Structures are given as C-alpha cells and as structure tokens.
C-alpha cells in the first residue's frame, strides 16, 4: 500500500503543505521537507518549478521564477531528494506542469520518482484521458498515484469518472480560481463542499486553493478529509524563512 493511501486512512483531518523546490534557496528543498515533517504535517507537495505556471497565482509564480533563477531543474531535484526516505516516511508528492516531465521523459521521470521515494504526482495539465490512454501503466508500475483536480464547475458525471480513475485522493479546488486567489469561503463554496460530500465518492477529497489559516482549514475540512496550503505557506516562507515553519503549522493546527 502506498504511503498516501495509508495516510488517507487516518482518522484526523489531514494537513498537506505545498512548497516550491529550490525556494527560497536552491538547497532549501530537503531542509523544508524535514522541518515540515518535524512540525507534524501529514503530506507534502513538492513543487517542480515551471517557467509558465498558468494555474498558479502570483505567489507561487514568483517562487517558481525564483527557484528557476536559483538553478533548480528536474535532475537536480531528484539529486536533492536522493536519500530522503532515510530521513522521513511522510507521503511526498511532486506537483508540477507536464512539459518538464515530458522533456525528462515520462518513463524516466516515473522511475526516478520511485528511486527517491515519491508517492504520487499532481500534474494539473495532464488530462485524465491522456493519462489513461498513455501513461497509467507507467505510473502504476512505479507505484505512483496520480492525483486529479475537480472544481465547482466540474460536472457530476465527470467527477464520477475522475473518482473512478483515481486511487489516492481527489484534489478538490475550492473555487474557480488560480492558487492563492481567495480569502475565506462563502456560501457558494460551502454548498459545493456539501454537494461533493453527498456524492459519496470512493476517493477521499483534499481541498486546495484559498486555505491560509486555522479558520479556512477548519471550513475546508468540515466534510473533506484534509486540505492543502500552498500560497500562504510560501508567503510565510518568503517573509520568515525556515524558522517560521513550526509556528505556522501550529497556528493552522490550533482549534479555531
């Protein structure tokens, strides 16, 4: 059983953190993972920086640009992650855009993921049908879960299809937006959260986009199994550096 699937069985609401590899400093990738692990998060999305991150808002864009400028690239990320499994058992997901994976070679990329101990991938611009037609066996052979997104506009029929095709969790985008765009959830979002909950999907749902503090974390996870914080974490990292990680995580975890 994959580390992600195992984690999903846990009774509590999962906190997952996204950060950009090689940010703020090129060598920060592993130290950030270690600090997050120590701070007690449940899962980590390691952002593979891309020049044209079109699903991301300004905060994550800026961190990607900085990471690339720092010298981050795919091969280097794998080098940095080598040996990570000697340090932590936390589920690790690489999140990025499809083009760098394609250039690395999808097969080579999957193999490297397995080698360093990556558990899953989130590639927002690799659509379900292409994945299923071309890449699913490769992912499976390397023990990688592929995570798909749904949004408030995703038709129920398609949600079922995505649920069908997923076997880790569903990344539930909180609202029609790029990352980091909203502040708090309104009645529309809550209705959406309830609607998805009532669908009784086989995969757990982890909510992402727009979660920045204990309050929004609690709202997002009322029905869902967990939530992902990205932009708010990057913002904190930019301002406070790695020493801010533990206090930030504590502030999310505390009851609202």
């Amino acid at each position, binding site marked *: 059983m994959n580390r992600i699937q195992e984690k999903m069985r846990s009774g509590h609401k999962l906190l997952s953190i996204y950060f950009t590899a090689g940010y703020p400093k090129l060598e920060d990738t592993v130290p950030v993972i270690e600090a997050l692990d120590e701070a007690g998060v449940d899962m980590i999305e390691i952002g593979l920086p*891309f*020049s*044209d*991150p*079109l*699903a991301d*808002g*300004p905060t994550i*864009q*800026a961190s990607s*640009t900085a990471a*690339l400028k720092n010298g981050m*690239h*795919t*091969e280097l990320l794998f080098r940095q992650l080598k040996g990570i499994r000697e340090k932590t058992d936390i589920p690790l997901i690489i999140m990025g*855009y*499809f*083009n*760098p*994976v*394609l*250039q*690395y070679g999808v097969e080579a990329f999957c193999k490297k993921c397995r080698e360093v101990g990556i558990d899953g991938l989130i590639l*927002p*611009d*690799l*659509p379900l049908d*292409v994945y299923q037609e071309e890449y699913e066996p490769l992912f499976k052979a390397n023990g990688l879960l592929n995570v*798909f*997104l*749904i*949004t408030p*506009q*995703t*038709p129920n029929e*398609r949600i079922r299809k*995505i649920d069908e095709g997923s076997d880790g969790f569903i990344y539930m*985008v909180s609202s*029609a*937006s*790029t990352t980091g*765009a909203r502040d708090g959830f309104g009645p529309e979002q809550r209705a959406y959260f309830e609607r998805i909950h009532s669908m009784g999907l086989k995969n757990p749902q982890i909510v992402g986009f727009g979660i920045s503090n204990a309050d929004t974390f609690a709202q997002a996870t009322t029905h869902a199994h967990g939530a992902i914080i990205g932009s708010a974490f990057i913002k904190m990292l930019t301002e406070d550096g790695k020493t801010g990680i533990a206090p930030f995580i504590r502030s999310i975890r505390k009851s609202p």
Partner: protein
Amino acid sequence: GYYGEFGGAFIPEMLYPNTEELRQNYLRIMGEPDFQEEFRQLLRDYVGRPTPLYFAKRLSEKFKARIYLKREDLCHTGAHKVNNTIGQILMAKKLGKSRIIAETGAGQHGVATATVCALMGMECIVYMGEVDIARQAPNVARMKMLGAEVRPARSGSRTLKDATNEAIRDWINNPVNTHYIIGSVVGPHPYPDMVARFQAVISEEIKWQLKEKEGKEDPDYVVACVGGGSNAAGTYYHYLDNEQVGIIAVEAAGKGVDSGESAATSALGKVGIIHGSKTLLMQTGDGQITEPYSISAGLDYPGVGPMHAHLYKSGRADFIAITDDEAMAAGLMVSQLEGIIPAIETSHAFAIFDHRTFKPDDIIVINLSGRGDKDLQTYIDYFKL
C-alpha cells in the same frame, strides 16, 4: 483534436468546463445558418471581404513567376486577425457570454478583439505583457479608444506568452460568463481547429478568385509567414489535402537560426506542451519555455500551432527560416515595387525568393497578412528613414 501527434487539450481541470462547452458546441453553432449569415455579412460589410487577390506585376517580373498577393492587409484593423475575432465574438454571443478576454503581443489581435467587442457592446479585457505595452503604445491607445481595458502581464518575460498565461488565469477565475478569444491557431482543442475554420475564408476566396484570373483554382504554391500560424492556416486550409499545391511556411530566424536569438520554432523546437496544446516548442533541455526573438513582434511566439507542427513533421509543408535583415530588405522591396508596405511578419514571406527557385509559369499566392503601419517605427529605425 489532434493533427498527427500534435494538438489535444493539455489543460488544468479548472478549464475543463470552459473548453468542453466550446468543444461540444462550436461545430454545431458554426453550422447554423443564422450564424453563417451574420458571420458572412460582417466579413463583407464590416471587415471588407472579399479581400482582393492582386496580381503583383512588378514582383512577378522581378522574380520571373506569376505572383499573386492575397490582400489581408486591407481588412478592417489592418490584418487577417479580425476574421477570427468576428467569428469568435459571434460564438461567444451564441454561448451566452457577456465578457471577453484576450491576449496580445504586438497588439494586433488585441485591437481586433477590442474592435469586435465595441461592435457588439461587450466588456473586453486584453492582457498584454508589460514590455509589449511599452513598445507598442499606439496599439494600446487603439484598444483604449475602442473601450477595452488593457491589463499588464507582469510575470515571466512580460511578453506574449505571459499575457497568454494571464488570460488563461483570468479564464480560470471567470469560468461562467467569460469567453477567451485566442488570437491564433494555438491553445487547447478546439481553438486551433476553430480559429483555422474562421480563417479558412482566406483560401476559400483564393480558390474562386484564382479561378477568375487564371482559369483554375489551384496555384502551384501558397506562401505564408508563421508565428502562431493563423494567417498561414487560413491560406493553406482548402489546399491541405491537395498535394499538387505546394505549401511554404516562413518562420522568423531573427538574427540567424543558430544565433540564440531566433523564433524559428520548426528548426529549434522540440515536442512540448504550451498553452494547453502539444506542439513544437522552443524550450530548454529541462522543459522550461524559452523566450524567442524576432524583429517582428508577431512572430516571436515560442510555439507554433499544432497544425503547423504536423505540416512540418509530415513534410507536407516546406519551412523556410528568414532573418531579420532578409525580412526588412524584402519589406522595402515590396514597398518600392508594389506600393504596399507590409507588416514585418508578412515581409518574411517575401524573402523566400533567395531561398527557392520557381518556374516562370508557377503561380505563387503569398498571403499579405497585414499592413506595415504598425511597424513604421521599426522600419524607420532600421533604415534610418
């Protein structure tokens, strides 16, 4: 949604409903008689179609071939771009949208979009790289005159590809009321196909116009410059399956294909994903998209439409890379031989005669895709006029 191995819709799920709505409806809507009637009527009365097919006597004498120019430079707003924006604004109306977004590089597509939004009384937001806003001030002013809002793209290289990223982000954030008018045969399916169909009027007209003038519908060659590739797609469209008609695609070599400052995507690109489409793409070994260079603001797109990627890979089209210097010299030549100052994009297409030879009775149709008014400052600086 594929041209050989190229095309598709490599989009984040957030865009799925928008593109799916379009995909499911575009062919049906385009087939409706009232859509066709309004589209054709606006092309005729507003855009000024049919644009002439002009026999270029002095060019023909100089290069010893029968050279015809398809005069898209005479279209309202100065280039072929408006064929597509007319089609898409009608599509947006049919889909019940009230808000239009677009990306623009040199500003031509932005102007063409702002124009049709004014015509239809629709809200219009055009994303444009901050760098391009500074260097294309007249087109920014035109868009504002037309009532559009021009929003600067401040990320990345702050040029066309970043403006496109911003437009996509806007669309993600406004999935219900907004239609995104993409300006070329790029982006996720169904855009490349839809835009090509709107531009196909170019070759549709060439066929009957050439029949009138030469007694036959088919030239020996059709020639067009390729940035994203929409004018080329329109020029080739009705000749794609006719192997008797040679297809010549002209790309911008900038300061030379191997100079490091080029936009010759076919020569330099590798298969990749840009703006939701699998195509040939200029990128680093690591898959980061690189910023291309050309003296022409309309050709410096790091990708190329999937149709053209396929035309290149399959060998159906003959791709020629033309440098800045060759293009500028060709632009001056056409100005002084025919009294037509071409857009610098188009000037590239006139520089093929040093690269290929033709027979005296070869009929060559070159798409004169845009007029050079927008490029005057570049011509002035280059030739020290």
